[in-house]
């Protein structure tokens, strides 16, 4: 087999991002603290150019000896990942500055994690997937520990690291089994070998289970969810914002590439497992979220519940189901960005406003932001015409279409339970008297972006069709 020069065109987004990271790193070294804003601008510029290249890819190309794929799914996931990372960077700026955390490293680590996500999204080979995953995870571990004087953050980072390392190990073990069984690292060849059927069943099942566990950990599905509340709670809010949004898109890519592309022929083996994880996540996420008093922890459990919905759509096993899961993931990351955006806005210098009680009477302090939070919360409940409703509708339709009406009923019943804790936030903001009366302060950029973000949740609901169409194209 001779050496074939890889086609670089489809990977330009990653290449631009990697180059941009070097530029940002070097530039940041020579910037004084006062000019730290330039780092942000450079990072945003990098993301924009990368997004432009990611969007310019057409059709489906395999390159780097079949270990890298550029297809419509990768395109849509990359665009949204880059967009959301940009939004997160803007939201984080003021928060970091007020806590003397505004260092170039935040953006650098964020960009590295983003690069990892892009690699995961385009992975078509077990090693590429693992490489991307580790690049993302290591950057995220470091980000959680970013506030080095905070013992809580250090503890969370430690937990995240240890659990994450175990999950990576499990995943890697599954991958090695797969390689041993099929003799290939490339996803389509693995699928072909599995479909041919002359494989050892117990070993395949074991490999499937291990891969599934690795994916479930990254999503934070029950029973591999223990890190989620602690990390969300312990990390600086700007990092929680980062972890809670874009990595979900990468995790979705991992789910689709590994389980559908690679282990597609084993669907009958992983579907029941995934369904079980999904239902457990729905139940535990929604029920435990009710008991939370801290908004970050509450949102962490709400994430687990939403992940349940995403996995249910995926586990339906149909193209509609995967479309629904993709749509849900995108909508969820937008909603989560909005929700954490408000949480970040609530906290001020030396004071983390991340208790639910801090939302008391927000409507009297800042009616506009209260309304924005209201939109996001209502969308998370799944009330039409907000985007969250159409995400749920999509998944439910896929489930009923796959003859899982019983599961669909369970899913809607638990979303009623889930409604309670979102309503509690609305209740605190609107029905209770404020403890203090100062309005929230925010720069024009954050104000504007947050409004666009929250109103986007409404608009993506009222005009859901374009995004639905994109998802349909992406899944094919």
């Amino acid at each position, binding site marked *: 087999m001779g050496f074939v020069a890889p086609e670089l065109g489809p990977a330009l987004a990653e290449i631009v991002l990697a180059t941009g990271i070097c530029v940002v790193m070097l530039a940041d070294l020579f910037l004084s603290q006062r000019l730290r804003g330039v780092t942000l601008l450079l990072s945003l510029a990098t993301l924009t150019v990368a997004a432009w290249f990611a969007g310019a890819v057409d059709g489906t190309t395999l390159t780097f000896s079949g270990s890298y794929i550029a297809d419509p799914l990768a395109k849509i996931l990359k665009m949204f990942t880059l967009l959301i990372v940009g939004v997160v960077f803007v939201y984080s700026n003021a928060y970091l500055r007020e806590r003397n955390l505004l260092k170039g490293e935040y953006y650098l680590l964020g960009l590295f994690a983003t690069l990892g996500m892009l690699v995961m999204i385009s992975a078509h080979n077990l090693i590429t997937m693992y490489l991307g995953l580790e690049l993302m995870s290591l950057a995220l571990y470091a980000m959680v520990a970013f506030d080095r004087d905070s013992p809580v953050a250090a503890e969370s980072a430690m937990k995240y690291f240890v659990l994450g390392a175990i999950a990576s190990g499990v995943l890697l073990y599954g991958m090695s089994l797969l390689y041993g069984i099929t003799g290939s690292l490339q996803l389509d060849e693995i699928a072909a070998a599995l479909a041919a059927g002359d494989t050892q069943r117990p070993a395949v099942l074991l490999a499937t289970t291990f891969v599934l566990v690795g994916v479930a950990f990254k999503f934070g599905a029950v029973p591999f969810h223990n890190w989620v509340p602690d990390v969300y709670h312990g990390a600086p809010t700007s990092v929680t914002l980062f972890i809670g949004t874009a990595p979900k898109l990468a995790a979705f890519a991992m789910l689709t590439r590994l389980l559908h592309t690679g282990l597609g022929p084993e669907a009958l083996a992983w579907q029941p497992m995934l369904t079980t994880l999904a239902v457990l996540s729905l139940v535990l996420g929604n029920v435990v979220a009710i008991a939370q008093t801290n908004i970050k922890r509450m949102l962490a459990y709400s994430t687990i519940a939403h992940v349940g919905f995403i996995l249910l759509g995926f586990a339906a096993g149909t193209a509609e189901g995967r479309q629904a899961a993709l749509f849900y993931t995108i909508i969820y990351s937008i909603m989560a960005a909005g929700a954490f955006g408000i949480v970040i806005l609530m906290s001020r210098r030396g004071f983390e406003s991340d208790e639910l009680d801090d939302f008391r009477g927000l*409507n009297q302090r800042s009616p506009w932001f209260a309304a924005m939070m209201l939109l996001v919360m209502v969308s998370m409940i799944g*009330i*039409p015409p907000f985007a969250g409703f159409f995400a749920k*509708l999509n998944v*439910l339709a896929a489930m009923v279409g796959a003859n899982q009406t019983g599961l669909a009923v369970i899913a809607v019943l638990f979303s*009623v339970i889930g409604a309670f804790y979102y309503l509690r936030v609305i209740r605190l903001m*609107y*029905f209770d008297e404020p403890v203090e009366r100062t309005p929230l302060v925010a720069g024009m950029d954050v104000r504007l972006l947050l409004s666009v973000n929250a109103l986007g949740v409404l608009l993506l609901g009222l005009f859901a069709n374009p995004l639905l169409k994109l998802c349909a194209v992406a899944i094919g």
Partner: protein
Amino acid sequence: MGLLSTLIWLPILGGAVVLAVGDRDSRPDRWLALLFSLGTFALSLALYTDFDFATPGMQFIERAAWIPQFNIQYFLGVDGISTPLILLTTFLTPMIIVAGWTVIKKRPAQYMAAFLILEGLMIGVFAALDAMLFYVFWEAMLLPMFIIIGIWGGERRIYATLKFFLYTFLGSVLMLVALIYMYLESGSFSILRFQEMPLGLNEQIWIFIAFLIAFAVKVPMWPVHTWLPDAHVEAPTGGSVILAAVLLKMGGYGFIRFSLPITPDASASLDGLMIALSLIAIVYIGFVALVQQDMKKLIAYSSIAHMGFVTLGFFVAWAILRNGGSQDTAAGITLGITGGMVQMISHGLISGALFLCVGVMYDRMHSRQIADYGGVINVMPKFAALMVFFALANAGLPGTSGFVGEFFVILASYQASFWYAFLAATTLILGAAYTLWMVKRVIFGDIVNDNVKTLSDMNGREGFLLVILALSVLALGVYPAPLVDMMTPAIENLISHITQSKL
């Protein structure tokens, strides 16, 4: 933009404008809210004047693709069943705005905006012919109502509003699954298509149960009625009026638009259950109303009992059909359904008026307890006259609209079974008992409470609202023909659907 779209979006736009203007000293929010709601009402009159009384089908149709991925359409249209309900909504909203004019001190702009947005959404529910569009309006409506009760309600408002939201949300999510199921079977969310599609008995029963939970909570039927007294008691006056007058009607509307025509065979096999629940609501809840100490609670229970007539009127159809044979069958079914519909409109006006009356007294005394009043007639003679009038209408006095619906339904249920009619007719005694006993204790007698002595009679604003409502109740009672004529073709069309088995 078509008339129905205008009716839906004008108030919602108005709500946004009022929110944007906010609270100012010159009270522009109230004037703007009044302007938008009166504008909507004026436009909605065209629904009556341009209505084609001869067609049984849908009118004022608007149809456009909304979400082609799921074949969800922006599909609006009304017939003789939904038009009166839309008119009721547009008629009452300006009144609520006026009723809250000076009473609402806390963030009035948000209050007015919430009611305007709610109005648009409610009209949307009645006008939607695409099931998903219907569901979108149906659910979206929960939010303004949640906020109305939660911000401007009484002491236990948070408990009441959460209970209201979760009950209704729980009811409707199962309907969502049923709608999705029918979409996958029929390839469309069109309600008209659902009415035509064939469904097996087993499927029908499941779908019927999903609808039943959604609509029974909304009506509300016994035993899922417990949210209503709480919500009514805690809601501000305007909220109670809209809740009683329009929101409850959505349950009845749902039965008539979805359950009856889409699942006729399931309705036929479960009609015994429905009739039993309706009769329990009429008789048992009537007794419950009798012992209430709180005026709003009493009216709330009386609403449940009156709504029992609506569901009874709809579901005696099959019992009449089974008794069948005589040529009166069709007439009997028509009578029952027409009675239910008239009862919905009439109850909307009467219970709305009664809640306004309680609001008038509450604004002066800050008490809803019957025991705190007595002898109000001595200090508020004009008000007392109107309140007694509405109380009599509530008890079903001939000549008022309250009589027409109940009479129709009792006549129809007599064709089904003597005992149905007998039990339903107990309301003539029970309704009179609890309403008049309350009136006796509140309005008549000697003044025992010193606070009552200081009451001033209603002002022009309050009097204006109550007189208009009294005139409508009277007009509908003496001459219900325009309303009945409007409904008849649509109801006959409905009957052709429900008498034809889908099996």
